[in-house]
């Protein structure tokens, strides 16, 4: 589903991380770990086609990608349900209803509230709801556990299990202590380049 060879990204003419190569098949999880600032976010953004690699190849790449990054991609001036309804109409690939997804992430009580009024953890859940709605095969997650309480962390793990079992794949970047224990998870330790 995703196979890269010597992907490199430079900023200010210095590589952000050492060249990256890996192969990810359906049902697999790639865990990207590394110290703070070693370039995990940049790598995820390169994989998401937001950034163009300075060198290296995408030997294989699906174009059904879902991304949850540091900036969550939800509008403050819209309510949870409005945000999700828009995304569902916009993406057009969803096979689930907004209400169902809101219930799954535990935002049922606040679905009519403006996103601005939510806590950081609730906003994260809203982004996760959007991810579920997007119905994409490859998930690119940058610090998905941040701002979440234990229930939230369990929710992410649950979503991951379902996703991988259904044939999806995931690249997950985290520096935190929590990591999902999966039999099929590859561990990738990202080494920072001179720019980081």
């Amino acid at each position, binding site marked *: 589903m995703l196979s890269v060879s010597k992907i490199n990204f430079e900023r200010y003419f210095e590589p952000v991380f050492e060249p990256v190569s890996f192969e990810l098949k359906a049902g697999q999880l790639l865990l990207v770990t590394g110290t703070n600032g070693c370039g995990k976010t940049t790598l995820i953004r390169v994989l998401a086609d937001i950034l163009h690699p300075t060198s290296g190849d995408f030997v294989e790449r699906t174009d059904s990608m879902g991304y949850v990054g540091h900036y969550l991609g939800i509008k403050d001036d819209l309510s949870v349900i409005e945000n999700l309804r828009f995304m569902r109409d916009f993406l057009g690939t969803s096979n689930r209803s907004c209400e169902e997804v809101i219930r799954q992430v535990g935002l049922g009580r606040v679905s009519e509230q403006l996103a601005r009024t939510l806590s950081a953890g609730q906003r994260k859940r809203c982004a996760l709801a959007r991810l579920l709605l997007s119905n994409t095969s490859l998930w690119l997650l940058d610090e998905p556990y941040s701002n979440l309480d234990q229930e939230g962390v369990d929710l992410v793990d649950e979503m991951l299990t379902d996703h991988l079992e259904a044939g*999806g794949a995931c690249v997950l970047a985290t520096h935190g202590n929590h990591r999902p224990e999966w039999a099929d998870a590859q561990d990738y330790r990202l080494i920072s380049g001179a720019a980081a």
Partner: protein
Amino acid sequence: MNTNVTTMNKEKARKNWLVMFIHKMGSPPWFYNFAGKLIPWLWAIFIGLTVWGLYLGLFKAPADYQQGESFRIMYLHVPAAWMSMMIYTSMAIMGFIALVWRIRIMEILAMCSAPVGAAFTIIALASGSLWGRPTWGTYWVWDARLTSELVLLFLYLGVIGLYNSIDEPRKAARAACLLAMVGAVNLPIIHYSVKWWNTLHQGSSISVTGGSNIDPSMLWPLLIMAVAVKFYYGANLLTRARVKLLEQDKRKGWVKNLVKEHKS
């Protein structure tokens, strides 16, 4: 879930020689050396042509029956104006190549062209203004050419401003290249609309350059100067580009080797 598989094929690129040349030029040390060899020749030709052209233009060409000696400033003004437009166009073309094929050398050449072009625009404006004084009695006239040059200067300043505002150098270059392309597309539109605006508002067109019938003895030096400044552009551009290349690659191996060789 949707899946789509894309595979790259580099073999096809190798067969195309043009791609090969551009590829070679994209190698920083190769470009640095090649440019270094070219620059002295460009300076030599520029100086030679300029001396010849100015001699013919300032001394040999007869005085204009209308404007007297002051018309001679045309030998500076007109080539400068032509260059200001030519450089913008070449900057836009280099920018296009840089964006589409992501070639860093092209980014560098495009960005180094901008200040040179802006300088020519300022020279054109200043010389046009000085020319206006004896001819029309004022230092500035909103005629078609000067107004066009002024707008062109703003376009240049926009490109330079944008390039200097963005922190990351390659991102800054790409943004400025896109802007240059957009400006280039608009340039003919601006040029013609200003020309038209001029006729609309003043009836007969007032032009600093005067009549269109120009005596060959006056024309020759102009053409020589027009060619000469192109060599100036080439020499100046390559010099700046080499410096920028060194700056950008200062931590790379080839630059460090150069420094070592230089010291010994």
